[in-house]
């Protein structure tokens, strides 16, 4: 029983990180209709920024802020240079160009930082002991900050003027244009916000695990599974999807022998089940995809 509870708590804590990454993907898809494959590389670069600053003796919170800002800016640059030019292209061209960007960034990281796996070896908080249940402090740390970032995004979208602009653009691009919303600004803001979230998530990845050039692709595929489960562009859906996926993974790696290597499979088996049972996702608009 204790193992079961511990497994579920573990899953829910990791869900904070997943929600943070997936909601960034979701906000970009929702507003610009572009599936950004390079989002994972922003997470990876954010992790590197954190790693190098932290090993140079900078406080972890300042590291996080640095990743947050630098990846937000990088995301804006990538939008201005490439993405805005494919906004009106065929969907497969958009997907391919973001994939090109992802290949570009991950290989640039390999050249700059070498493919060697780096670890920060840091303990953010003491472990929590609840009777037989032990929760490592780093997991609590990433959960707290993952959820702070996630709810920060919700606050931004619902309570600020820029957020309202993004929301309107996401719901109906044409209508937003007619009612005087600067949709180009909304696109830019969504890329900045998505990138900044990815950068901060990179800090969490660096704290929890290792840093290496392809770490991003691991998270991006999971983020897609989450986003499709929740409905493309839905932020509450991202949280629900993240929780389901993280708990599912955690259960599989505990209870199925050699289950940790099946991690990927869990997300995709769930995704396929979801597609068959409820093709619009939990919060997807009807008729969105079919």
């Amino acid at each position: 029983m204790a193992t079961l509870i511990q497994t579920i708590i573990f899953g829910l804590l990791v869900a904070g990180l997943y929600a943070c990454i997936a909601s960034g993907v979701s906000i970009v898809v929702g507003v610009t209709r572009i599936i950004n494959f390079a989002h994972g590389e922003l997470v990876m670069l954010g992790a590197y920024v954190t790693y190098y600053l932290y090993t140079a003796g900078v406080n972890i919170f300042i590291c996080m802020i640095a990743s947050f800002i630098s990846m937000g800016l990088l995301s804006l640059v990538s939008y201005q240079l490439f993405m805005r030019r494919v906004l009106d292209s065929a969907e497969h061209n958009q997907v391919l160009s973001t994939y090109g960007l992802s290949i570009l960034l991950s290989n640039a990281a390999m050249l700059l930082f070498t493919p060697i796996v780096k670890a920060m070896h840091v303990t953010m908080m003491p472990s929590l002991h609840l009777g037989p249940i032990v929760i490592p402090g780093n997991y609590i740390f990433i959960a707290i900050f993952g959820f702070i970032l996630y709810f920060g995004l919700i606050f931004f979208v619902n309570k600020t003027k820029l957020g309202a602009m993004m929301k309107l653009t996401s719901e109906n691009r044409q209508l937003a244009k007619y009612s005087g919303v600067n949709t180009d600004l909304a696109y830019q803001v969504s890329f900045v916000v998505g990138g900044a979230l990815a950068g901060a998530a990179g800090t969490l990845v660096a704290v929890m695990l290792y840093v290496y050039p392809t770490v991003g692709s691991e998270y991006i595929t999971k983020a897609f599974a989450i986003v499709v489960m929740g409905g493309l562009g839905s932020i509450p859906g991202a949280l629900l999807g993240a929780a389901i996926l993280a708990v599912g993974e955690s259960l599989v790696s505990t209870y199925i022998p050699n289950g940790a290597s099946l991690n990927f499979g869990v997300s995709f088996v769930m995704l396929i089940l979801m597609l068959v049972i409820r093709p619009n996702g939990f919060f997807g608009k009807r008729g969105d995809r079919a």
Partner: protein
Amino acid sequence: MTNAKTANRLLGKYGIYVFIILACIVVYFFASLYFQQIVLGVIIIMILGISWDVLARTGQASFGQSTYFGIGVYSVAILAPITGVVAAWIISIILTMGIAALFGMLLSKLKGRYFAVSTLALSMAMQVIVLVLPFTSGASGISTTMLFRSNRGAQVILATVLLLVAVFISEQLLRPRPRTAAFLIRSNAYLAESSGIPVFRRKVMTFSISGGLACLAGAIYSSIYGYVLPEDVFNVKYNVMAIAVSILGGVDSSAGPLLGAILVRGIEEATKRTIGSTGYQLFVGLLIIVCVVTMPNGIVGVIKKHLSRHRERGIKKSGEAV
């Protein structure tokens, strides 16, 4: 004048086959072993690209061609020692077409982004399924039967013949009737349905053909390398390659994937030699972005535009003369 016209028409129709055969002869007689190996890789990517393009014509832009590619590799590897190579190939292709049809039914209702992400998910799931199944020997990989005692020249000829078959199938689907049907399905499925095109059946059928072609690429792969690991073949790299070569070369044509494959693999090899094996794909990423931004219709699109401008100028000139 009419002779020139007929020649032009024939060139348009059979030029691609002639070109492939000539290239094959050159490679067979004059290329080094190393270069022949590269050519085999290029042909595999070409067939994979064609399989993507065939499917994308019906509006189903897949992000998971490695699924059928990988199934092809694995089923040929597993069946060849039991049934012999020829039977293994035939069974594998039929099997893959069946699986692709099944997935096609499952995904036929999805559009655009959802379709892309779901096909990607299927390809990743397949990698895990291969790890779990009892007869695939899991993560340790599987040894395959090499054809022609790994004589590269003979393998190049076989691969070329199969490439010709793939191009032929693709050309059949580009004839006026199927092409119009595909275009209608892609642009407006309701209209297509009401004009009497069996949309669902067409989509599933195309999915199945596309799966069969990808399996063909996998079967070649399986018979030229002696050993395969699951992550080698069920790899996002093949998903991306299939799309990249088709879009960079030009969609909705048979020549597109061929040109795209030469371009992408050429850049890949050239950069690998200059920077080494770490990070050389940086330039592939750059190439993809630059090409998508500057020529959204690919190489074939650029050529067509050039030709039509040329023709227009010709018409204008003759008009002035009159």
